[in-house]
C-alpha cells in the first residue's frame, strides 16, 4: 500500500494504491488498472469504465494529462515528499517575492510601470510584441515593483526576468 498526494488546479487529492488492484481517492474505493499502449498513450479502467489517457511527463516532474478532451497538469508526491514540500513552503513564506518572466521571446514595446510603483493583479505591465501581435502582459501578483530588468525596445528571450514584484 502506497499513499500519494496529487495536486491539480490548486486542489489536493489523497490517493492510496492498494495491493489488491484497488485505489482509494479521498476515501472512495475503485478497482483500477492502467495499461501502457505506447510511450504516451494509456488505457485506464476504473471498475468497468475505460478511459483513454495521453500522458506527457513534464520537465519538473509533473504530468500533463489529456483525457475526455480536457487537459490537466498534476503534481504527484509521495506522502513523505509532500510533507517535505509543505515544510519548504512554510519556511520561505517570509519573503513574498515574485519574479515576472517573459512567456516567450519577443520585443519589448512599452513598459507601463516604473520601479517603486504598486501594482494589482490584472494591471498591464508591459507590451510585448510576439507573433506579429502586441500582447499586453498583465500582472499576476500584487505588490511593489522592486526592479525592472529590461528596457523598451529590447528583445527578450523566453523566461527572461522582466521585473520583480514584492
Amino acid at each position: 500500500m502506497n499513499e500519494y498526494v496529487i495536486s491539480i488546479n490548486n486542489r489536493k487529492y489523497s490517493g492510496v494504491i492498494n495491493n489488491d488492484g484497488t485505489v482509494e481517492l479521498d476515501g472512495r474505493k475503485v478497482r483500477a488498472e492502467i495499461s501502457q499502449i505506447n510511450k504516451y498513450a494509456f488505457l485506464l479502467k476504473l471498475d468497468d469504465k475505460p478511459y483513454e489517457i495521453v500522458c506527457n511527463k513534464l520537465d519538473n516532474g509533473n504530468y500533463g494529462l489529456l483525457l475526455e478532451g480536457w487537459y490537466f497538469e498534476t503534481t504527484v508526491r509521495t506522502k513523505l515528499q509532500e510533507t517535505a514540500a509543505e515544510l519548504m513552503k512554510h519556511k520561505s513564506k517570509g519573503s513574498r517575492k515574485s519574479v515576472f518572466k517573459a512567456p516567450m521571446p519577443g520585443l519589448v514595446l512599452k513598459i507601463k510601470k516604473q520601479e517603486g510603483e504598486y501594482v494589482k493583479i490584472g494591471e498591464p505591465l508591459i507590451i510585448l510584441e510576439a507573433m506579429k501581435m502586441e500582447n499586453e502582459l498583465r500582472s499576476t501578483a500584487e505588490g511593489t515593483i522592486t526592479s525592472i530588468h529590461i528596457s523598451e525596445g529590447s528583445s527578450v528571450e523566453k523566461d527572461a526576468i522582466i521585473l520583480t514584484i514584492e
Partner: protein
Amino acid sequence: MFKKILIANRGEIAVRIIKACRELGIKSVAIFSEVDKNALHVRIADEAYLIGHSPANESYLNKEKIIDLAKKVTAEAIHPGYGFLSENAEFIKLVEDNGIVFIGPSSKSVEMMGEKTAARKLMKQNNVPIVPGTIEPLNDFKEGIQIANEIGYPIMLKAASGGGGKGMRKVYNDNEFEDAFTRAQNESLKAFGKSEVYIEKLILNPKHIEVQILADKYGNYIHLFERECSVQRRHQKVIEEAPSIFVDDETRTKITEAAIKAAKACNYYNAGTIEFLLDRNKNFYFLEMNTRLQVEHPVTEMITGVDLVKQQIKIAANLKLDIAQSDLKINGHAIECRIYAEDVDNNFAPSTGKIIHHRLTSGPGTRIDRGIDLMSEVPIYYDPLLSKVTTWGKNREEAIARMKRALIEYQISGVITNIPAFNWVLKQKTFLDGSFDINFLDNEFLPLVPSKWKENSTKEIEAIAAIVGALLKEKETSSALTKNEVAISNKWFNQNYE
C-alpha cells in the same frame, strides 16, 4: 492544365493545396524554412526546397526567392494559400510580370480591395452598404477625435491595409483615443508595412457573416452561400459554420447579391470572400473583401460539395466555371473548430514544442485539415494554427454532436491546445440557440479565464486524472520507466515564489 504548382505557404493550408494538386494530377512543389524541414507539407509534396531561415521575412515572405525558385523548377503557377504573400499586390504583380500564373485574383483586384478605405469608397459607389465612418485614412489623432464625435462613440480604429484583427482598436471616448491610435498605427506598420488607420462606427453586437464567391476569367460569378464566423477572440475566428441559422432566405438573397456586386466592382476572378457585419435587425454592412482562400473554406465545401481549391486552380488555368448558380444548394450543416497551439489559461500564450503524440479523430461527417504530424515542430515564428476539425451533419444539432464526439477522440500531446475550450463553447446556451454575436467569447468566456470556465464540467474528470497521476507515479517509482524526454514549454506567466 498546369503540370506543376509551387505552394508558397506552410502548415495545414499548404497540405490542403498539395492534396488538390495530387487529385488533379499536378506535381506539387513545397517550400520550407529551416525549422520546417520535416514539416508535414514537406513530407507529402512531390518536390520540396529550402527557401531560407526560419523567420517568415527570410523564407515564406521572400518574394524574389520564391519567384526565382518557381522559374528554376519550372512551376507554371504559384498558389499562395492564405496569409503570407496571398494578398500582397506587389508580389502578385511580380508573379504576373515573370510569366507565372498566380492562383488567385489579379494584382489589380487585390489592390482595389487591399486598401480598406479605397475599398469602402468603391463599395459605396456600387451600392454595397458600408459601416458608417471615413473613406480616407486619418491624418492625425486630433482629426480622428473630431470625426469620432461626429459619428458618435464607440468607434473602431482599423488599419487601412489591414485584416485579421491586426491594427484594430475599439475606442469608447476621447481620453482613450490617442493611445489607441498610436497602438493601432504601430501594429499596422509591423503587420502590413503601412501605418494608416481609419475610423468606423462600432456596430453593436453584430454577427460576422461572410459570403464565399467564385468567378472565372470570363465574367461568370457564383456565390456559395454564407458562413457564420462570430465566435471570435480578439477578432480572430475560432469557430465557423455554414450556413448561419440567423440568416433567413430573404437576408440570404440580399447578402449574396451584395457579395456578387462587390466582387464585380473590382473585376474579381478566382475564389474570394466578402465579409459583412449583420446587426440584430438583419441589416448588413460591408466589412472587407478577402481576396484569397479562407481558413474556414472547408465548411463551405462540406455543405456544397464543391472543392474550392480545385476550382481555384481550374479558374487560374483559364477554364470556365463548370458550376452554375442553380446547381448549388445548401446540404446540411458544417462546423469548423480551429485547433491552436495555445494555453488558454495562461493568457492564450502560444505553446511551442514538438508533437510527440497525435491521434486523429475520424468517423462519419468528420474532416481534419492539418499541418502537423508526429514529431512536427511547432515553432514560434508562425501562426499557431495546428489543424482544423470540421464536422458535417444533416442539421446543426448533428454537426455539433459530431464535433463534440470528434474533439474527445482527437489527441495531441507535446504542445498545449485550445481543444478544452471548445468543450465549454459547444455547450453554451448562447452558442446552441444561435444568438451569439462577435462579442460572445469576450463577454462570456474571457471573464472565466483562467480556470473558472472548466470548474463545473471537470470535477469528475479531475478526480480521474488524480487517480491516473497516482498510478503513474506508482509505476514510475516501482520501475523507473516511462521517462519522456520531451517537455512542454509554454509558461506565459511563470511565477516563482522564492
